[in-house]
């Protein structure tokens, strides 16, 4: 495999990496939860983590990523012992599991790039040894335990893997307990529904085929595999009724597969209603209901009846035979390449009915409640017809599609506002044009939604961060995530990831007090850190909020004065203005620099990153009560509403979102300070005037402010009035970057192509407003 990797294999590997990453991302928070209270672990949680490592081990083994397989196998062993109650889970174990997650992530990165996991052997061995040691320590002396009835399989597995690491499959069935603790997202449910439908459809086809050719073993195998996968999925999602029924069905099929007769002349007739019932259950789920199966008891009875007279479950010898059968099945499945790896691997782990029985018994004891929870946690599972299908698309393809649509918007503008048409009365053309504009607009909106992904992934990553930092800083914190389903452009998510990390670090390090301080201040010992996302005012707001000590006004002022950021003693500044000082470059209030934060580079980077995506940041803070940061991000990046303005012969675009108002100034409203700064009075406020012709270095029609128009621009709560000759009108503006060759230009954020094909610059409101203040400051200094 290492020498020549075929496309097929490549695809499998990529699939493996993606799936494993997804699983780790989902489960890491769960593991971290455990670390907070591992005295009485929830059996479901342990099971879901066990399944993570189990399936990773299986896939990695199959793909010959020995190092990954080695480590995950060790982790799996540990969990299995915890699961069966043989050992107690202690915090050290959880730390090891977290370390395993980290290792796996690194390994997956490597696999993703190089398609091999060599070169991390040392890390793998160390970690695996630690895990094995932990098991040995926890078990005291292992052999005594191994003699009991339940452990032989595990020992066998262990030896097997030790001998030929990663080649063979493990003999364990993924545990079938229901309802893992973690949140199941709407997306996952949709995927489940889709896959379930495919599986059941195949199963139905197979059943019908079986009826025609009862001797055809392949059909039975396929059937068994499909039902088995379905069962596995149900178990993972915690849909206990579906799982139970499919499990019984699987038992029947298993018996057929192993060549024993069942009590039915026409098995297909008996089994088809079962498949129908499963289908109904899935349809219910797709419609947003709980996936219940009302006919469950009757159907289970029918199924039990089918295998009633037969012998008790298989012996060890049979299990070994099945080992052989299984590897053939794997090869075959690989050839056909139809299924995702995960599914293949669930199939491969299938071969021990004993284990299934055992797990089922256990489940019956511990797990009687229905699967309401995941259904409730899946608000995005729309009651739509379950016809929806997903495909994975390369992001670059998507980007070029969006670029093309951008071009289309420009082309449309060029066509409809074509100079050749000026002054003509073209009724039909105008109609057709309007129709096209509407379609283009819809197309554009659709394309934008394609790029949108829920912030859940980003938020969940923060769980880990918060866990690590709060441990390090000795703070107790309750992290609350709100609005995880809010969708944001993928690029935006990437861009706000670092700022969010900064903000959370600051919140934990500087914001929240230590438990002692909190108690002394009469607050609950545990601080609350809330991370939320929501749509507001045509933007997405991501909020980081904590109930810590708040921003200390005096300290900030002291620091600002020391660093020469403000003049005087700052007593005239509002709280808000003082708070915004922390965004100034080189500002840090931490009395001591910790290794978590406090090097004074954080907040201005946060602000700059946000400005890159035309976002804003807002602070609200009350001393003693907490601090709240609002990140306000525009919904889309690529296309904005723009106001076209003219200065002399050149035109520019001002983003409409930043415009508060525009007016023709009167002589009386203009004040010129002795140092030459022009101010305009709007109602009771004074705004500095920025002359666009000076920014662009152009000759305006008139230099008299009263001859032109003033546009009041707002940027992070500061305002300035932009002086232009004329406002030409509004238009949809496709943002294009100025060439890298030119680099960043002060006052310009990008450019766009106008209807006549000409390039027009888009003004950067942030730097214009700053420019106006810069003028003031400079003049203040020189005065």
């Amino acid at each position, binding site marked *: 495999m290492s020498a020549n990797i075929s496309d097929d294999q490549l695809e499998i590997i990529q699939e493996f990496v993606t799936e494993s990453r997804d699983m780790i991302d989902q489960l890491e928070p769960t593991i971290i939860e455990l670390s907070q209270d591992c005295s009485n672990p929830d059996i479901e949680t342990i099971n879901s983590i066990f399944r993570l490592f189990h399936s990773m081990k299986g896939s990695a083994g199959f793909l010959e990523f020995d190092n990954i397989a080695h480590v995950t196998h060790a982790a799996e062993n540990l969990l299995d012992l915890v699961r069966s109650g043989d050992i107690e889970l202690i915090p050290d174990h959880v730390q090891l599991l977290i370390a395993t997650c980290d290792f796996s992530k690194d390994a997956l990165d490597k696999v993703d790039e190089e398609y091999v996991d060599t070169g991390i052997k040392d890390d793998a061995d160390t970690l695996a040894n630690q895990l094995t040691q932990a098991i040995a320590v926890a078990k005291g002396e292992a052999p005594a335990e191994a003699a009991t009835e339940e452990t032989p399989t595990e020992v066998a597995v262990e030896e097997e893997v030790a001998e030929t690491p990663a080649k063979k499959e493990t003999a364990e069935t993924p545990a079938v307990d229901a309802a893992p603790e973690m949140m199941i997202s709407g997306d996952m449910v949709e995927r489940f529904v889709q896959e379930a439908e495919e599986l059941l459809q195949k199963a139905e086809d197979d059943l019908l085929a079986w009826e025609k050719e009862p001797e055809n073993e392949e059909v039975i195998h396929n059937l068994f595999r499909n039902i088995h996968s379905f069962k596995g999925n149900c178990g993972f999602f915690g849909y206990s009724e579906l799982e139970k029924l499919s499990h019984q069905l699987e038992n029947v099929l298993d018996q057929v597969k192993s060549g024993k007769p069942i009590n039915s002349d026409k098995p297909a007739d008996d089994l088809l209603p079962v498949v129908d019932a499963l289908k109904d259950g899935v349809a219910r789920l797709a419609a947003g209901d709980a996936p219940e199966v009302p006919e469950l008891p009757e159907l289970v009875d029918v199924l039990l009846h089918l295998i009633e007279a037969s012998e008790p479950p298989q012996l060890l010898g049979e299990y070994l035979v099945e080992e052989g059968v299984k590897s053939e099945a794997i090869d075959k499945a690989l050839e056909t390449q139809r299924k995702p790896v995960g599914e293949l691997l669930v199939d491969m782990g299938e071969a021990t009915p004993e284990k299934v029985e055992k797990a089922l018994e256990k489940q019956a004891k511990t797990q009687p409640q229905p699967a309401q929870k995941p259904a409730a946690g899946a608000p995005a599972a729309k009651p739509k017809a379950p016809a929806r299908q997903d495909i994975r698309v390369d992001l670059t393809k998507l980007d070029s599609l969006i670029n093309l649509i951008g071009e289309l918007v420009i082309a449309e503008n060029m066509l409809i506002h074509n100079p050749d048409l000026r002054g003509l009365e073209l009724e039909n053309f105008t109609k057709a044009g309007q129709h096209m504009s509407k379609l283009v607009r819809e197309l554009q909106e659709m394309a934008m939604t394609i790029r949108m992904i829920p912030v859940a992934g980003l938020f969940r990553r923060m769980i880990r961060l918060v866990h690590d930092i709060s441990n390090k800083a000795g703070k107790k914190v309750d992290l609350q995530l709100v609005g995880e389903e809010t969708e944001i452009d993928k690029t935006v998510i990437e861009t706000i990831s670092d700022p969010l990390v900064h903000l959370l670090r600051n919140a934990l390090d500087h914001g929240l007090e230590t438990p002692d301080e909190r108690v002394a201040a009469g607050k609950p010992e545990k601080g609350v850190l809330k991370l939320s996302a929501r749509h507001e005012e045509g933007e997405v707001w991501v909020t980081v909020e904590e109930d810590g000590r708040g921003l200390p006004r005096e300290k900030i002022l002291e620091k600002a004065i020391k660093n020469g950021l403000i003049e005087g003693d700052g007593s005239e500044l509002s709280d808000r203005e003082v708070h915004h000082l922390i965004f100034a470059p080189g500002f840090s209030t931490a009395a001591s620099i910790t290794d978590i934060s406090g090097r004074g580079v954080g907040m201005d980077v946060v602000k700059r990153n946000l400005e890159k995506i035309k976002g804003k940041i807002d602070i609200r803070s009350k001393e003693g009560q907490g601090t709240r940061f609002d990140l306000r991000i525009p919904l889309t990046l690529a296309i904005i509403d723009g106001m076209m303005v003219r200065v002399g012969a050149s035109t520019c675009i001002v983003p409409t979102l930043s415009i508060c108002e525009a007016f023709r100034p009167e002589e009386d409203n203009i004040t010129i300070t002795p140092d030459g700064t022009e101010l305009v009075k709007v109602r009771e406020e004074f705004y500095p005037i920025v002359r666009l012709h000076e*920014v662009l270095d152009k000759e305006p029609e008139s230099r008299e402010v009263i001859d032109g128009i003033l546009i009041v621009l707002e940027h992070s709560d500061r305002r300035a009035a932009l002086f232009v000759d004329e406002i030409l009108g509004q238009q949809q503006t496709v943002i294009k970057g100025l060439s890298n060759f*030119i680099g960043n230009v002060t006052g310009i954020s990008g450019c766009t192509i106008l209807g006549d094909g000409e390039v027009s610059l888009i003004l950067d409101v942030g730097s214009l407003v700053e420019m106006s203040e810069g003028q003031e400051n400079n003049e203040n200094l020189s005065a």
Partner: protein
Amino acid sequence: MADAKNQLLEEIDIENEDTQKDKYLTFHLAEEDYGIEIRYVMEIIGIQKITEVPDMPMFVKGVINLRGKVIPVMDVRLRFNMEGREYDDRTCIVVVRINDHEVGLVVDEVSEVADIPEKHVEPPPRASRAGGSDYIQGIGKINEEVKILLNVNKLLFDEEMEQMLAAAGQ
């Protein structure tokens, strides 16, 4: 004018990389003929409306729309500290692509694609009075004609240029 030149380029485009060797697009600037390696040349377009960008060095004239792409335009005359000249219908923009950057070069007039074998290329003069000699890759000779062969990379990315851009960006 420009169309004819593009046709010329298309013919060459069909041939492969190897045959692009020793081929130069020659153009006229002030009193001299210059050449740049054909492999950098994407296309030649007539002069069109250039949108000025503030705070740029003199020779960066601004940006143009090249079929939906926004590319910067550099006036080669100004780059060499020569005197500027009014653009006319013979003025062309030669679009070159190097290191993933596309840049338009404004030249007085495009002449032809010339074959200048290596043996007819002399090394650049050591020193020269004008500041431009750094960008000279060699002096090509075709019969009695002399073509100054330019190093496109240096033309676009030399230190001086970057400093100027950085200074302008401040």
